[in-house]
Structures are given as C-alpha cells and as structure tokens.
C-alpha cells in the first residue's frame, strides 16, 4: 500500500510535489516559529484531539450496545443522535479548517511574486495550493471519524450490512465536509473575482470572521433529534430543510437505508447543494487562474491612507500604553492572531447568546441562575485562556530588535504592561459583557454581588495565566506543541467545567447570605492578592525573553545513585576500574 502510494506520488510532476509540501506546512506561519519548533508534532497534537473527540463517544456507544436487554429503539436513537452529531462535527471541522487556511487556499501576493519568475505553470501552483488545503481537510475528517466510522456501521448494520453502512457513513461525512469546504472556496473566489483587489483584501478579513462565526453559531444552535417520531415531526414542520446537516443526514439515510421513514427532499437537496458548491469552487479556481492571480501582481505596493482615527486613550504610563496599543494593533491587524482569538471569543459569545436566549424566552427578569453564573465564569476563562495562547504567537520575530534596543526599564515594568494588556483585551471586556447580561436579572444585589465575584475570578485567572510569563505579548518565538493542547482541552472539559458548575451552585446559595458571601469574597480576594504578589515577586527577578526554548531534560542512568548507595565511595575514589566491577556484578545479579 505504502509502496503503491509512493509510486503514485512519484508519477506526479516534481514541481507539484515540491510546492505541495511547502504549502502543506504553510498553515502555520513558519517565520514566527521558535528555533526548536516541531510542526509535525504540533499537527499531530491537533489530530490527537480530534481522534480523542471521535473515539470516546464511539467507545461509549460500543459499551452501551453491549448491555443486555437494551431496547432496540434506544440503540437506534443513540445511533441517530451520534450520526447527526458526527456529521455536524465533520462539517464544523471542515468549516474551521477552511477558515483557518483562508489565506492559503488561493495563491497570495508572496506566492505570485516568488513563484511568478520561476518556470512553474500557474495551474501547478493553484493545484498544489488546493490539494494541500484539501489534504488537511481529509486528515481532519479521518481523525474525527476514525472511531465512529467503524463502530456505527458495525452496530447499525451488523456484519452482513457493514460494507454498505461503512460506505454510506464515509461517503456522507466526506460529502458534508466537501460541501462546507467548497462553499468557503466559492465565497472567497467569487468575491475576489468580482471586487477590486483592494476592496477584496479589506472585506476578506471580515468575511473570514463572519464565516467563522456562522459555522460556530450553526453548530451551537442546530437541533438534534433522538427518535424517528421527532425526526418525522421536524420534517413535517420543515425544520430539517433549514439545516444543512439534515440534508446530509437524509443522504446517509437514503444511501444506508437505516431509517424506516423516507427523508423526502433532504437527500436530493444535499446532492444539489454539493453539486452547486463544487461547480462554484471550480468556477472560483478558474477565475483565480484567469483573473485573480494577474490582479494580485497589479496590486500597488503602497495604498494611500488619508488620515488616522484618533481617540485611543492612554491605559497607564507610557510604557504600558505602548505595549497595550502594540498588542491591540497586533490583534486587530494580524489575521492569524485574530482568528485564533476569534475561536475562543466566538465560543464565549455563543455561551453569552444562549444565556440571553434563555432569559429572553422567559419574558421576565429572574433571580440569577447557576446557568448565568457558570456561563460568565466560562466566558472569562475562555477569553483569558485565548488571549494568553495568542500572546505566545509573535507578529514579527526579526523586528523584535527594537524592543531589545529600547528596553530602558526593568523587566517588571514590561511584565506589568503585559498584565495590563491582558486586562484591557480580555478580562475587562468580558466583565462588561457580563455586567450587560446581569441587567436581565433581579434582584439587583444578586447581580452586583456576582459581578464582584467575577471581577475577582478574572483577576485570579489573569494572574494564573501569566505565572512565569516574562515576555512582551506577540514578541517571543513560538514553540508549537509545548502547550500540549490536548491536555489543556481535557483539563478544561474535565477540570474547569465541573469546578465552575460546583462553584456556581455554591455561589448562588451564598448570594442571599451576607456572612457566607463575605467569606467567599474574602477567600477570593486573598487568592487574587497572593497570585498578584507571586507574580510581582517573580517579575522582580525576571529577565525578558524573546526565544522560546524547550526545557533541557537530563536523562540519567542513576549510576551515581547506585554507586553512592552500594559502595563506600571514599574507598574507591580515584580508582575507575573498581566502578565497572560492581556494575557488571549488579547486571549479572539482576539477570539471575
């Protein structure tokens, strides 16, 4: 198999293979990486997260299906639910991959300028671009569905119908992912072709974020149905035709024959939509080949700017203002940073919207609920964690010399400025959002009491996120994989969420009890102050760093320990021959 693939790859043109490899790794900006960066490990970690997300529910389904006396309709309901959620997950993953590689899908100015003078056909460049982006998509779909893609066909089809179910599952998952990927390609390609290049570049960033928010919102708000009756009712009411995930669920139903009811117009709708976006994507690629690449070259190097918007307020002393403004501008103008932070913010935003929706449907002001309390805590956690993670991504390593040359204050001032940036860009906006949401709740004192607790929690999270951070935001090289994303993800899911829920329940119980509330505030204040002092103390002895490196790991064979324990060291001092003898004896002894 491997040899066949290798032989197949060797038949492709050399230019295509070289460019494909280059573009595949360009998902991450290589110029921002640490000298010790390991990209395959980083990509492996993300694939690991997707595999874990896919494998755990598959194992759960497998265990539950093994239970004796399990009703068939329960199993069928679970299978339906999992099929829907994995289709939705695949579509979300495809959408996020397409948005994340937004700039990499079509050749950019750098590609055109670097590759233009070389004897490489534009269509080879374009093909390498598209295939490299599509490869990432395929890896994602495969990683996410590798568990459920086997378990679900096996349970629903048995051994006899496994091949059909298996083929139907993977065909639907790939079709749904291609639909989303093709839709992004179409939107981007058509916009690039229709608009003047300068307008497109301005709109492109907004379009990217809007698409991102759309995918995430659809994923959060789309319904799920666990029984055939519910599904049939939703179909009668026309709910299913509104959500693309059910078009492809209908396609799965038609190709696998899993449901006793007909999916009606859903499967044809899926086929039609897929055909439309594939045609649109093809047209986009053609337009890019014929028109956009030329427009990219013709784009002027310097665009006139009339004036600058004023009104940026100082946020501390001069140094703090400089660092905070630098961070704000990096966040606002660097697409890579904006996108990563948007992922965290969009999740927090979804939580806020769902909280607001629940309140709006009740049509009256209610006492604060644990749901509101936990959602604000999660929003704070997501915003702080998100900002902390992108603080580690540099905007331009080579330009850092200016920060080093102008470092006229002690490192503690820079570290304080970094904390200020975190407060201004994450903690305070989330707190203000929570304050806005708190207007929906009565009595007032409960909402205000929670806002005080949230402020303290924000301070704790900010200082906890900055422990050991002796760097200026966006200025230190990036070491992918160091953060161990999969551990952080599971720590958040299994650690922070249950903790936040328990804390919120307790908080709600003390909101009307002044003594207990005062005790809680006192404890939080003490924790916040302690963390602040710890960071202050560390900052005084800190040295600012601009290069992220792996901690040195020394592997020892414990020979010295054995030697010290097993022999009188002084007796053998200076006689190296004596050292080897007990080692040999020890080895023999272990064998015997």
């Amino acid at each position, binding site marked *: 198999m491997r040899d066949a693939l290798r032989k197949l790859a060797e038949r492709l043109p050399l230019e295509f293979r070289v460019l494909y490899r280059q573009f595949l790794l360009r998902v991450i900006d290589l110029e921002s990486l640490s000298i010790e960066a390991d990209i395959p490990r980083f990509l492996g970690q993300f694939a690991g997260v997707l595999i874990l997300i896919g494998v755990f529910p598959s194992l759960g389904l497998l265990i539950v299906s093994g239970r004796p006396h399990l009703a068939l309709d329960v199993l069928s309901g679970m299978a339906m639910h999992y099929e829907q959620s994995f289709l939705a997950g695949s579509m979300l993953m495809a959408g996020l991959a397409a948005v994340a590689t937004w700039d990499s899908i079509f050749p950019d100015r750098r590609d055109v300028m670097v590759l233009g003078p070389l004897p490489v056909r534009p269509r080879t460049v374009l093909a390498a671009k598209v295939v490299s982006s599509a490869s990432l998509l395929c890896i994602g779909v495969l990683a996410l569905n590798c568990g459920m893609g086997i378990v679900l066909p096996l349970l629903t089809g048995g051994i006899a119908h496994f091949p059909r179910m298996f083929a139907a599952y993977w065909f639907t998952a790939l079709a749904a992912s291609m639909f989303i990927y093709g839709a992004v390609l179409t939107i981007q390609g058509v916009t690039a072709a229709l608009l003047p290049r300068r307008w497109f570049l301005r709109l492109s960033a907004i379009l990217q974020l809007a698409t991102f928010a759309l995918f995430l919102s659809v994923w959060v708000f789309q319904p799920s149905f666990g029984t055939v009756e519910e599904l049939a009712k939703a179909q009668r009411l026309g709910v299913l035709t509104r959500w693309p995930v059910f078009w492809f669920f209908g396609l799965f139903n038609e190709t696998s024959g899993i449901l006793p009811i007909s999916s009606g117009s859903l499967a044809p709708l899926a086929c039609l939509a897929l055909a439309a976006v594939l045609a649109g994507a093809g047209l986009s690629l053609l337009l890019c080949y014929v028109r956009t690449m030329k427009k990219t070259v013709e784009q*002027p190097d*310097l665009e006139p*700017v009339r004036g600058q918007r004023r009104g940026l307020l100082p946020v501390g002393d001069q*140094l703090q*203002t*400089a660092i905070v403004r*630098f961070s704000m501008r990096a966040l606002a103008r660097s697409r890579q940073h904006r996108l990563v932070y948007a992922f965290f913010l969009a999740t927090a935003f979804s939580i806020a919207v769902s909280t607001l929706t629940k309140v709006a449907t009740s049509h009256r002001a209610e006492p604060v609920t644990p749901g509101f309390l936990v959602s604000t805590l999660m929003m704070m956690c997501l915003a702080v964690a998100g900002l902390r993670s992108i603080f580690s991504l540099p905007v331009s390593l080579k330009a850092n*010399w*200016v920060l080093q040359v102008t470092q*006229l204050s002690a490192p503690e001032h820079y570290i304080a400025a970094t904390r200020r940036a975190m407060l201004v860009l994450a903690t305070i906006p989330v707190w203000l959002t929570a304050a806005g949401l708190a207007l929906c709740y009565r009595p007032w004192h409960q909402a205000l009491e929670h806002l005080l607790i949230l402020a303290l929690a924000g301070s704790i999270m900010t200082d906890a996120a900055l422990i050991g951070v002796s760097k200026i935001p966006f200025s230190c090289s990036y070491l992918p994989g160091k953060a161990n994303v999969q551990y952080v993800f599971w720590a958040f899911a299994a650690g922070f969420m249950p903790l936040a829920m328990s804390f919120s329940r307790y908080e709600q119980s003390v909101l009307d009890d002044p003594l207990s509330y005062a005790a809680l505030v006192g404890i939080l204040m003490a924790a916040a102050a302690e963390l602040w002092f710890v960071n202050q103390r560390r900052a005084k002895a800190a040295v600012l760093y601009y290069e992220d490196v792996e901690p040195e790991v020394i592997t020892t064979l414990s020979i010295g320990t054995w030697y010290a324990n097993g022999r009188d060291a002084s007796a053998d001092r200076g006689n190296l021959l004596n050292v080897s003898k007990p080692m040999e004896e020890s080895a023999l002894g272990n064998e015997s």
Partner: protein
Amino acid sequence: MLELRGVSKLYAGIPAVNSLSFSARPGEVTGYLGPNGSGKSTTMKMITGLLELSAGQILFDGQPIQEDLIAYKRRMGYVPEEPYLYNHLSGVEYLTMVAQLRGLPSRESAERIEGLLRLLSLHDDRHASISGYSKGMRQKVLIVAALLHNPDLLLLDEPFSGLDVGSALVLRQLIKELAARGKVVLFSSHELDTVERVSSRVVILHKGKIVADDSIERLRSLMELPSLEAIFSQLAVEQDPSSTARQIANLIHA
C-alpha cells in the same frame, strides 16, 4: 567616547570577530569597513547590546556598557543593516511606539516625529501600513527612530541602503552635522566613496580582525594610494576583481 577593548565573538567556537580594539571619538565620524562576512554587523550588534561578548569590553564615556545597559541605551541610536520593522503598524504608529518605549514626552515626540517625517518626505505616507513601504521608506523610518531621542552615540549600519539620491545626500550632510555637534558616530557602509566623504577616520575589518585604524589622510600617505577604495582593495580584497569577473563569465559561457 566609544571604546572597544579586545572584543571577540565566537559562534560555536568559531570566531566571528577576534580581539577588536578601537575607539570612536565625539565630533568625528568613524567609518567601519569590511567585506561581507568580516564581522561588521556582529560588532554593531555587540555595541548595541543585542549580542553578548565572548571576550573583551565595550566602554562608553569610560564606563563598561554592561554595567548599566539601560542608561547606555538611553544615549544610543541604532540603524540596523536589515530594515526589520513591525509590518502591521503604520510608520507613525511605529515611531510613536518607539518614542513611548524610550519614555519621551508625548507632545514633544509627536512634534519631532511629524517634523522628521516631513523633512524625510515620508509625511504623506505616515499613516500607511509599513508592509506597503519600499526599502527606502523603511530605511527612513529606521533613521527617524534612531534620531528621535537625540542620542549621543549613533550607530549606523548601512544607513544608505535603499535611499534615493536626494535622501542619501541629506543623510550624508546630517551625519556630518551631528558629528560636528559633538556626537559619536560609528558608520558602516560598503559605499567607499560616501565613507571617504563623510568619515574622518576609518577602521577596516578583514576576517574578523582589524587591518587598519587611522585617519583616511594618514592611510593614504602611509600606503601611498590615491583613494580609500584603493586602500580597501589592498587590505581587505583577496580576489583580483577583473580575473574573478572573467572566470565567472567563462563559467556561465561554458
């Protein structure tokens, strides 16, 4: 006065510069010359404090710079060889950030930035993103950033790189003017004609070692050569240019 005493820098045990000793005095422009890879930029980076020394000492006004690096940085302006800037900022945003990091009063620095940009013909594009700037425009931003705080020591590493003729003439006069006002100017360039016109003294580096350190006049008379170019060719150029050019042409032709 800037003084280097036995300064060496080793990369993985290999010396980039070896036991350099020279000085640059206030009121004069010291030219710092050498072929590619001779260690000029390494020396400049060590003088700015960006690189640590493997051996030796750098003194400014008699004080080792490492003793109080922050106080030293306050008095130093630096134009690096490569125009690395934060591309996501506009010219004026970048310069404002540098002024803030240097702790300059905001009104005074804003006026100074405005004036310098106007004088260097960059005023119209001050709000455009640096990513769109040409090499010359980036160089002007670097020059303004180095001059903003009125430094006592000016380190110029290839400052004419990418500048148009008009701006280069202005910069040439500016370097002389700043030296005449008592500043220490260390100036590295491959444009020997410019160095000859601007500098009073030159330090010539070859393979990490100093091969000449004197006034241009004295070097001319000692070596009995008519120009700095001839002196440089004799001291630091190993190849015969016409022979090498012929060999290259032959190689391509073959």
